[in-house]
Protein backbone atom coordinates (compact mmCIF):
# COMPACT_ATOMS: atom_id res chain seq x y z
CA UNK A 1 0.00 0.00 0.00
CA UNK A 2 1.01 3.61 -0.55
CA UNK A 3 2.86 4.68 2.59
CA UNK A 4 1.51 8.22 2.47
CA UNK A 5 -2.07 6.94 2.20
CA UNK A 6 -1.48 4.69 5.17
CA UNK A 7 -0.18 7.59 7.25
CA UNK A 8 -2.25 10.48 5.99
CA UNK A 9 -5.21 9.01 4.11
CA UNK A 10 -8.76 9.31 5.32
CA UNK A 11 -9.86 5.72 6.10
CA UNK A 12 -7.71 4.08 3.50
CA UNK A 13 -8.42 6.69 0.82
CA UNK A 14 -5.77 8.45 -1.22
CA UNK A 15 -3.82 10.83 0.99
CA UNK A 16 -4.07 13.75 -1.39
CA UNK A 17 -7.86 13.57 -1.38
CA UNK A 18 -7.98 14.01 2.38
CA UNK A 19 -9.00 17.66 3.05
CA UNK A 20 -6.91 17.69 6.24
CA UNK A 21 -3.74 17.69 4.17
CA UNK A 22 -4.65 21.05 2.70
CA UNK A 23 -5.13 22.65 6.11
CA UNK A 24 -3.29 25.76 7.16
CA UNK A 25 -1.95 24.68 10.61
CA UNK A 26 0.37 22.13 9.04
CA UNK A 27 1.75 24.81 6.75
CA UNK A 28 2.42 27.13 9.65
CA UNK A 29 4.45 24.49 11.41
CA UNK A 30 7.03 24.57 8.62
CA UNK A 31 7.01 28.31 8.27
CA UNK A 32 7.43 29.22 11.90
CA UNK A 33 9.14 32.54 12.70
CA UNK A 34 12.56 33.20 11.25
CA UNK A 35 12.71 29.89 9.45
CA UNK A 36 10.60 31.35 6.70
CA UNK A 37 13.01 33.55 4.84
CA UNK A 38 15.82 31.00 4.48
CA UNK A 39 13.18 28.42 3.43
CA UNK A 40 12.34 30.56 0.42
CA UNK A 41 15.99 31.05 -0.47
CA UNK A 42 16.61 27.34 0.02
CA UNK A 43 13.77 26.55 -2.35
CA UNK A 44 15.05 28.97 -4.98
CA UNK A 45 18.60 27.64 -4.72
CA UNK A 46 17.40 24.02 -4.60
CA UNK A 47 19.73 22.39 -7.14
CA UNK A 48 22.85 24.07 -5.72
CA UNK A 49 22.51 21.83 -2.67
CA UNK A 50 22.80 18.76 -4.87
CA UNK A 51 26.29 19.53 -6.09
CA UNK A 52 28.09 17.51 -3.37
CA UNK A 53 25.94 14.48 -4.21
CA UNK A 54 26.45 14.78 -7.95
CA UNK A 55 30.23 15.15 -7.47
CA UNK A 56 30.16 11.62 -6.05
CA UNK A 57 28.51 10.03 -9.09
CA UNK A 58 31.82 8.29 -9.90
CA UNK A 59 32.00 6.73 -6.45
CA UNK A 60 28.93 4.48 -6.06
CA UNK A 61 29.48 3.64 -2.40
CA UNK A 62 29.87 7.22 -1.22
CA UNK A 63 27.10 8.34 -3.56
CA UNK A 64 24.70 5.80 -2.10
CA UNK A 65 25.52 6.86 1.43
CA UNK A 66 24.92 10.52 0.73
CA UNK A 67 21.84 9.81 -1.36
CA UNK A 68 20.13 8.33 1.69
CA UNK A 69 20.47 11.65 3.50
CA UNK A 70 18.98 13.58 0.62
CA UNK A 71 16.11 11.10 0.38
CA UNK A 72 15.44 11.47 4.07
CA UNK A 73 15.13 15.24 3.67
CA UNK A 74 12.66 14.87 0.83
CA UNK A 75 10.33 12.84 3.00
CA UNK A 76 9.27 16.28 4.26
CA UNK A 77 9.29 18.04 0.90
CA UNK A 78 8.40 16.04 -2.14
CA UNK A 79 5.58 14.84 -4.26
CA UNK A 80 3.74 12.25 -6.22
CA UNK A 81 2.40 11.83 -9.72
CA UNK A 82 -1.39 12.12 -9.97
CA UNK A 83 -3.83 11.36 -12.75
CA UNK A 84 -5.94 14.07 -14.39
CA UNK A 85 -9.01 12.60 -12.75
CA UNK A 86 -7.50 12.86 -9.27
CA UNK A 87 -6.06 16.34 -9.92
CA UNK A 88 -9.57 17.54 -10.75
CA UNK A 89 -10.76 16.19 -7.41
CA UNK A 90 -7.89 17.96 -5.67
CA UNK A 91 -8.82 21.40 -6.97
CA UNK A 92 -12.31 20.84 -5.64
CA UNK A 93 -10.82 20.51 -2.16
CA UNK A 94 -8.04 23.12 -2.25
CA UNK A 95 -8.74 26.83 -1.92
CA UNK A 96 -7.57 29.29 -3.03
CA UNK A 97 -5.75 28.25 -6.22
CA UNK A 98 -3.16 30.60 -7.68
CA UNK A 99 -1.46 30.19 -11.05
CA UNK A 100 2.20 31.15 -11.22
CA UNK A 101 5.41 30.61 -13.11
CA UNK A 102 7.15 27.27 -12.65
CA UNK A 103 10.05 27.68 -10.28
CA UNK A 104 11.99 24.69 -11.65
CA UNK A 105 11.91 26.07 -15.18
CA UNK A 106 13.18 29.39 -13.86
CA UNK A 107 16.07 27.67 -12.14
CA UNK A 108 17.08 25.29 -14.92
CA UNK A 109 16.38 27.33 -18.04
CA UNK A 110 15.95 30.89 -16.70
CA UNK A 111 12.63 31.20 -18.45
CA UNK A 112 10.10 33.53 -17.02
CA UNK A 113 7.02 32.17 -18.62
CA UNK A 114 5.85 35.33 -20.31
CA UNK A 115 4.73 36.33 -23.76
CA UNK A 116 1.96 34.70 -25.74
CA UNK A 117 3.19 31.22 -25.01
CA UNK A 118 3.02 31.91 -21.30
CA UNK A 119 2.21 28.55 -19.78
CA UNK A 120 2.47 29.61 -16.12
CA UNK A 121 1.96 25.99 -15.37
CA UNK A 122 2.26 25.88 -11.57
CA UNK A 123 -0.66 26.09 -9.18
CA UNK A 124 -0.06 27.25 -5.61
CA UNK A 125 -2.66 26.11 -3.09
CA UNK A 126 -3.92 27.31 0.25
CA UNK A 127 -4.47 30.55 2.13
CA UNK A 128 -0.72 31.26 2.21
CA UNK A 129 -1.13 32.30 -1.42
CA UNK A 130 -3.02 35.42 -0.32
CA UNK A 131 0.28 36.73 0.99
CA UNK A 132 2.29 36.14 -2.17
CA UNK A 133 3.16 39.83 -2.51
CA UNK A 134 5.34 39.60 0.56
CA UNK A 135 7.90 37.60 -1.45
CA UNK A 136 7.98 39.03 -4.99
CA UNK A 137 11.17 37.15 -5.82
CA UNK A 138 9.55 33.80 -5.09
CA UNK A 139 6.45 34.71 -7.09
CA UNK A 140 8.25 36.58 -9.85
CA UNK A 141 5.80 37.61 -12.56
CA UNK A 142 2.93 37.66 -10.07
CA UNK A 143 0.11 35.19 -9.50
CA UNK A 144 -3.49 34.96 -10.74
CA UNK A 145 -6.23 33.39 -8.67
CA UNK A 146 -8.28 30.77 -10.49
CA UNK A 147 -11.72 29.36 -9.84
CA UNK A 148 -12.04 25.59 -9.43
CA UNK A 149 -13.36 25.29 -12.99
CA UNK A 150 -10.54 27.40 -14.41
CA UNK A 151 -8.02 25.31 -12.52
CA UNK A 152 -9.48 22.10 -13.98
CA UNK A 153 -9.28 23.54 -17.49
CA UNK A 154 -5.73 24.71 -16.89
CA UNK A 155 -4.57 21.29 -15.70
CA UNK A 156 -6.36 19.45 -18.49
CA UNK A 157 -4.96 21.81 -21.14
CA UNK A 158 -1.33 21.25 -20.17
CA UNK A 159 -1.73 17.58 -19.36
CA UNK A 160 -3.14 16.87 -22.82
CA UNK A 161 -0.20 18.74 -24.30
CA UNK A 162 2.15 16.36 -22.54
CA UNK A 163 2.80 17.63 -19.02
CA UNK A 164 2.90 15.25 -16.06
CA UNK A 165 0.67 16.31 -13.15
CA UNK A 166 2.42 16.18 -9.78
CA UNK A 167 1.72 17.21 -6.20
CA UNK A 168 4.27 19.12 -4.16
CA UNK A 169 4.29 19.11 -0.38
CA UNK A 170 5.79 21.73 1.89
CA UNK A 171 6.13 19.83 5.12
CA UNK A 172 4.55 16.49 4.16
CA UNK A 173 1.60 15.88 4.23
CA UNK A 174 0.75 19.55 3.66
CA UNK A 175 -0.05 19.90 -0.03
CA UNK A 176 1.16 23.26 -1.29
CA UNK A 177 0.97 22.93 -5.03
CA UNK A 178 0.00 21.12 -8.17
CA UNK A 179 2.70 21.20 -10.83
CA UNK A 180 2.74 20.40 -14.53
CA UNK A 181 6.09 18.88 -15.26
CA UNK A 182 8.40 17.60 -17.96
CA UNK A 183 12.01 16.41 -18.23
CA UNK A 184 14.62 17.87 -17.78
CA UNK A 185 13.29 21.17 -16.46
CA UNK A 186 11.27 19.61 -13.63
CA UNK A 187 13.70 19.08 -10.77
CA UNK A 188 11.51 16.49 -9.08
CA UNK A 189 11.36 14.21 -12.14
CA UNK A 190 15.05 14.72 -12.67
CA UNK A 191 16.17 14.02 -9.11
CA UNK A 192 14.12 10.83 -9.07
CA UNK A 193 15.10 9.49 -12.48
CA UNK A 194 18.76 10.52 -12.60
CA UNK A 195 19.77 10.36 -8.93
CA UNK A 196 17.22 8.05 -7.33
CA UNK A 197 15.80 10.53 -4.79
CA UNK A 198 12.61 8.55 -4.41
CA UNK A 199 10.47 10.64 -2.02
CA UNK A 200 11.01 13.70 -4.21
CA UNK A 201 8.59 12.16 -6.69
CA UNK A 202 6.66 9.01 -5.92
CA UNK A 203 4.92 7.07 -8.65
CA UNK A 204 1.17 7.49 -9.03
CA UNK A 205 -1.63 5.19 -7.99
CA UNK A 206 -2.06 3.81 -11.47
CA UNK A 207 0.04 2.38 -14.28
CA UNK A 208 -0.49 2.46 -18.03
CA UNK A 209 -1.17 -0.65 -20.08
CA UNK A 210 -1.34 -1.04 -23.86
CA UNK A 211 -4.16 -2.91 -25.52
CA UNK A 212 -2.29 -4.74 -28.29
CA UNK A 213 -5.49 -5.28 -30.27
CA UNK A 214 -5.95 -1.54 -30.66
CA UNK A 215 -2.33 -0.34 -30.92
CA UNK A 216 -1.30 0.51 -34.50
CA UNK A 217 2.34 1.20 -33.64
CA UNK A 218 2.19 4.88 -34.60
CA UNK A 219 4.73 5.75 -31.89
CA UNK A 220 3.00 8.88 -30.59
CA UNK A 221 3.11 7.65 -27.00
CA UNK A 222 6.82 6.82 -27.25
CA UNK A 223 7.63 10.46 -27.91
CA UNK A 224 5.41 11.70 -25.12
CA UNK A 225 6.61 9.61 -22.19
CA UNK A 226 8.64 11.78 -19.81
CA UNK A 227 9.97 8.74 -17.93
CA UNK A 228 11.44 6.75 -20.81
CA UNK A 229 9.07 3.89 -20.04
CA UNK A 230 7.75 3.31 -23.57
CA UNK A 231 9.60 1.65 -26.45
CA UNK A 232 8.53 0.62 -29.91
CA UNK A 233 8.75 -3.12 -30.35
CA UNK A 234 10.00 -3.17 -33.91
CA UNK A 235 8.96 -6.68 -34.95
CA UNK A 236 5.45 -6.62 -33.52
CA UNK A 237 4.93 -2.91 -34.42
CA UNK A 238 3.39 -2.28 -31.02
CA UNK A 239 4.23 0.10 -28.23
CA UNK A 240 5.63 -1.59 -25.19
CA UNK A 241 5.20 0.05 -21.81
CA UNK A 242 7.56 -1.11 -19.12
CA UNK A 243 5.14 -0.96 -16.20
CA UNK A 244 7.96 -1.10 -13.68
CA UNK A 245 9.25 2.19 -15.11
CA UNK A 246 5.83 3.77 -15.67
CA UNK A 247 4.87 6.52 -13.21
CA UNK A 248 1.18 6.34 -14.15
CA UNK A 249 0.91 9.97 -15.21
CA UNK A 250 -1.52 9.23 -18.02
CA UNK A 251 0.08 11.47 -20.65
CA UNK A 252 0.26 8.53 -23.10
CA UNK A 253 -3.41 7.67 -22.63
CA UNK A 254 -4.38 11.11 -23.94
CA UNK A 255 -1.70 11.13 -26.65
CA UNK A 256 -2.84 7.83 -28.19
CA UNK A 257 -5.01 8.48 -31.28
CA UNK A 258 -6.46 4.95 -30.99
CA UNK A 259 -7.37 5.17 -27.32
CA UNK A 260 -5.33 1.99 -26.93
CA UNK A 261 -3.74 2.82 -23.57
CA UNK A 262 -5.55 2.76 -20.26
CA UNK A 263 -4.60 3.40 -16.66
CA UNK A 264 -5.09 0.54 -14.25
CA UNK A 265 -4.80 0.47 -10.48
CA UNK A 266 -1.28 -0.18 -9.26
CA UNK A 267 -2.50 -1.83 -6.09
CA UNK A 268 -4.42 -4.47 -8.04
CA UNK A 269 -1.15 -5.75 -9.46
CA UNK A 270 0.73 -7.78 -6.85
CA UNK A 271 4.00 -7.18 -8.70
CA UNK A 272 3.63 -3.41 -8.58
CA UNK A 273 1.66 -2.63 -5.47
CA UNK A 274 4.80 -1.96 -3.42
CA UNK A 275 6.51 -0.12 -6.25
CA UNK A 276 6.23 3.62 -5.68
Amino acid sequence: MCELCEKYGDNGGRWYLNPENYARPLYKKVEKGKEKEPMILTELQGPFYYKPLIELKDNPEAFEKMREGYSKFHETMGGQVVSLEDAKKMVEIAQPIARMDCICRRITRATLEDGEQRPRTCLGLGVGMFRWEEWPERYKGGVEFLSTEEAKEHIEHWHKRGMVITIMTFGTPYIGGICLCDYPDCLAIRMRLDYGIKPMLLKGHQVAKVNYEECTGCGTCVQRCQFGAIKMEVTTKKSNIDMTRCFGCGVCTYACPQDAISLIDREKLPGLKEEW
Partner: protein
Amino acid sequence: MIPQIEIDKNKCATPYECKKCLQICPQAVFAVAPTKVERFKETAPEDYEVQAVFKDKCVLCMDCVKVCPTGAIKVKVGSS
Protein backbone atom coordinates in the same frame (compact mmCIF):
# COMPACT_ATOMS: atom_id res chain seq x y z
CA MET B 1 35.25 11.09 -14.93
CA ILE B 2 32.90 13.96 -14.15
CA PRO B 3 33.84 17.11 -16.09
CA GLN B 4 34.83 20.21 -14.12
CA ILE B 5 32.88 23.31 -15.08
CA GLU B 6 33.98 26.61 -13.57
CA ILE B 7 32.14 29.88 -13.88
CA ASP B 8 33.99 33.11 -13.13
CA LYS B 9 31.51 35.13 -11.09
CA ASN B 10 33.35 38.36 -11.84
CA LYS B 11 32.79 37.89 -15.55
CA CYS B 12 29.23 36.56 -15.22
CA ALA B 13 27.42 39.60 -13.84
CA THR B 14 23.72 39.09 -14.60
CA PRO B 15 23.20 35.40 -15.42
CA TYR B 16 19.42 35.38 -15.11
CA GLU B 17 19.12 38.10 -17.74
CA CYS B 18 21.78 36.66 -20.03
CA LYS B 19 20.70 33.00 -19.65
CA LYS B 20 22.59 31.91 -22.82
CA CYS B 21 24.38 28.94 -21.20
CA LEU B 22 21.24 27.80 -19.41
CA GLN B 23 19.25 27.66 -22.62
CA ILE B 24 21.86 26.26 -25.02
CA CYS B 25 22.99 23.31 -22.88
CA PRO B 26 21.65 20.09 -24.47
CA GLN B 27 21.99 18.30 -21.13
CA ALA B 28 20.52 21.10 -18.95
CA VAL B 29 23.58 21.07 -16.69
CA PHE B 30 23.22 24.59 -15.28
CA ALA B 31 21.03 26.18 -12.63
CA VAL B 32 20.51 29.85 -11.80
CA ALA B 33 19.27 31.28 -8.51
CA PRO B 34 19.26 34.48 -6.48
CA THR B 35 21.93 34.73 -3.77
CA LYS B 36 19.51 36.53 -1.44
CA VAL B 37 15.80 37.26 -1.06
CA GLU B 38 14.10 40.20 0.62
CA ARG B 39 10.58 40.88 1.80
CA PHE B 40 8.51 42.99 -0.62
CA LYS B 41 11.40 43.27 -3.04
CA GLU B 42 12.63 41.45 -6.11
CA THR B 43 16.28 40.44 -6.13
CA ALA B 44 18.54 42.70 -8.24
CA PRO B 45 19.91 41.12 -11.45
CA GLU B 46 23.48 41.29 -10.15
CA ASP B 47 22.50 39.23 -7.10
CA TYR B 48 22.01 36.10 -9.16
CA GLU B 49 24.42 33.29 -9.65
CA VAL B 50 24.69 30.48 -12.19
CA GLN B 51 26.29 27.19 -11.24
CA ALA B 52 27.00 23.97 -13.11
CA VAL B 53 24.99 21.45 -11.11
CA PHE B 54 24.27 18.34 -13.17
CA LYS B 55 27.89 17.92 -14.19
CA ASP B 56 27.69 14.15 -14.54
CA LYS B 57 25.42 14.79 -17.53
CA CYS B 58 27.92 17.03 -19.35
CA VAL B 59 29.11 15.58 -22.66
CA LEU B 60 31.82 18.23 -23.20
CA CYS B 61 30.24 19.68 -26.33
CA MET B 62 31.55 23.13 -25.28
CA ASP B 63 28.43 24.94 -26.51
CA CYS B 64 28.31 26.91 -23.24
CA VAL B 65 31.93 28.03 -23.59
CA LYS B 66 31.25 29.19 -27.16
CA VAL B 67 27.99 30.99 -26.34
CA CYS B 68 29.18 32.85 -23.22
CA PRO B 69 29.60 36.51 -24.21
CA THR B 70 32.16 37.24 -21.48
CA GLY B 71 34.23 34.05 -21.57
CA ALA B 72 33.27 33.21 -18.00
CA ILE B 73 32.91 29.45 -18.42
CA LYS B 74 35.76 26.94 -18.33
CA VAL B 75 35.09 23.25 -18.96
CA LYS B 76 37.69 20.54 -18.55
CA VAL B 77 37.90 16.81 -18.07
CA GLY B 78 39.16 15.42 -14.79
CA SER B 79 39.55 16.84 -11.32
CA SER B 80 42.85 18.71 -11.74
